[in-house]
């Protein structure tokens, strides 16, 4: 076991202190820059961050839109989930939710929430490449681990109740926060897994319509 011996550590000589000071200054500049540009970086901040990225990103000081602020009260701040169905039955009861381990506050469940939110964010920006890439991984995972391939996967958002609806304000009926009307589908795709394990993803663009399949990822069969 390590012994805790009393010892007095001397203050470093000026030469060493100067070198350490330069290191501290550079590090604090990186931290300050990462912190200051965590939400809406200016072009200057973005440029500086890209130069300092090898250091900031490698040590995870690069905060990159991390939601330290908990919520901004927008649609992106509510709970997101991934749902799938493996049968042709199109009723709502046929959909199953991909769940983590533990309650909703567990780190496992929160990772799934971030995963679904990422797909939703890109889908809303009309970038179908990222959601398709994620859906491909989900489909393969479900097919291998549950033995039955999903035929459709969707990303849904659970909207937050207003205070009036939750409290049953006079004239407003108290509503169930898990009512179907509080759910919004952000992205939905048909999935086809061929016999070699390749996954085709076709975004559902309207009521029962499918877009052209998104190109398979590189390195896939």
């Amino acid at each position, binding site marked *: 076991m390590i012994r805790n011996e009393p010892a007095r550590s001397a203050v470093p000589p000026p030469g060493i*202190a100067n070198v350490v000071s330069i290191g501290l200054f550079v590090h604090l500049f990186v931290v300050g820059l990462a912190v200051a540009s965590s939400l809406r970086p200016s072009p200057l901040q973005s440029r500086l961050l890209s130069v300092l990225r090898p250091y900031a990103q490698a040590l995870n000081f690069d905060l990159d839109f991390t939601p330290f*602020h908990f919520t901004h009260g927008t649609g992106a701040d509510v709970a997101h989930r991934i749902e799938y169905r493996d049968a042709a039955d199109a009723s709502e009861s046929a959909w199953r939710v991909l769940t983590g381990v533990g309650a909703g506050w567990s780190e496992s469940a929160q990772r799934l929430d971030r995963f679904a939110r990422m797909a939703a964010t890109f889908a809303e920006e009309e970038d179908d490449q990222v959601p398709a890439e994620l859906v491909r991984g989900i489909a393969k995972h479900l097919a291998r681990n549950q033995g039955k391939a999903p035929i459709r996967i969707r990303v849904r958002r659970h909207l937050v109740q207003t205070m009036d609806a939750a409290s049953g304000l006079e004239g407003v009926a108290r509503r169930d926060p898990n009512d179907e009307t509080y759910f919004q589908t952000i992205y939905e795709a048909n999935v086809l897994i061929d016999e070699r394990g390749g996954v085709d993803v076709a975004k559902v663009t309207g009521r029962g319509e499918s877009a052209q399949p998104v190109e398979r990822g590189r390195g896939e069969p």
Partner: protein
Amino acid sequence: MGHLAGYAGRLGAAADLAWRRFWFESAPIEPLARMRGVVGVFSLYALAWFSADLTAWFGADGLLPRDTVGRLVTGFGQEATYRFSLFQASDHAGFLWGAHAVFASSALLLAIGVLPRWMALLNLVGLLSYVHRAPMLTGPFECVLTALAAYLCIAPSGGFGTPWRRARSSEEPARSVAAHIAVRLMQVHLAALHVMIGLNMLGGEAWWNGDAAWWMAARSETRILDVTRLVSPDSGLFLVNLATHAIVAYALAFGVLIWNRTARPLLVMLAIPIWIGLALLSGQVGYCLLMLAANLAFVPGPTCASLFAIEAEPRTR
């Protein structure tokens, strides 16, 4: 012109003196030893949750295969990335579980203070390996934890029992300039994070109009405590507004007032209801409890009582 040059010289000398006093003081290692325990325990917490679904995320048939993450973090080959993870080496289940066991052991040994410098380094490599294997799964909890873990690597943090031993004995404390620098870095980082949290909150309308606490409480999936039924239409709105404004005010005040010796104990005590309340409302347990525990970096002596004695210290010298 001469006045200006004289002022610039005095300003430079004063800044230099303040800088050296702030960073290069030989101080007891107990505060860093305490933070070692905090980092070790929260690293174990993070890794314990990965035990639940390690192969589901990182395995060969996982939700996030290595090539998918590679495409996502480089913007489909458009950007350079500097994310290095041991888990990028293989997605074989045996390798994943072996590495996971090593990293979990290092977190445990770090928490109890066995080979603390080596374990701090191994723990940092482990945490960064999880973060960089799938950065899209990480949140503020991992950002704070990896920063604290990184600072822990630069100085000796004492062995087994260091935070408590001297509190019960009269032996002279082990002192270290490097340990002092590590604790200072943690303090500055945490203060900067608080300012950023406060400013980022004000970047959204919900924190201005007082609704943000409701937005957290109404998320039925994540909240731990359901207070929505307690909110009456009349008084509830004001309670929600009060909680919202108090959280913003605290975050902004912390970054500035924590450097004031008189205000520091108050801010550290206020951290308890603020962060526990946020954990109950938002469900972000790891993040909130880590931010709360990180306040221990501002306790200067071997015991928590030293936080309150700090004002009396200069007068007795």
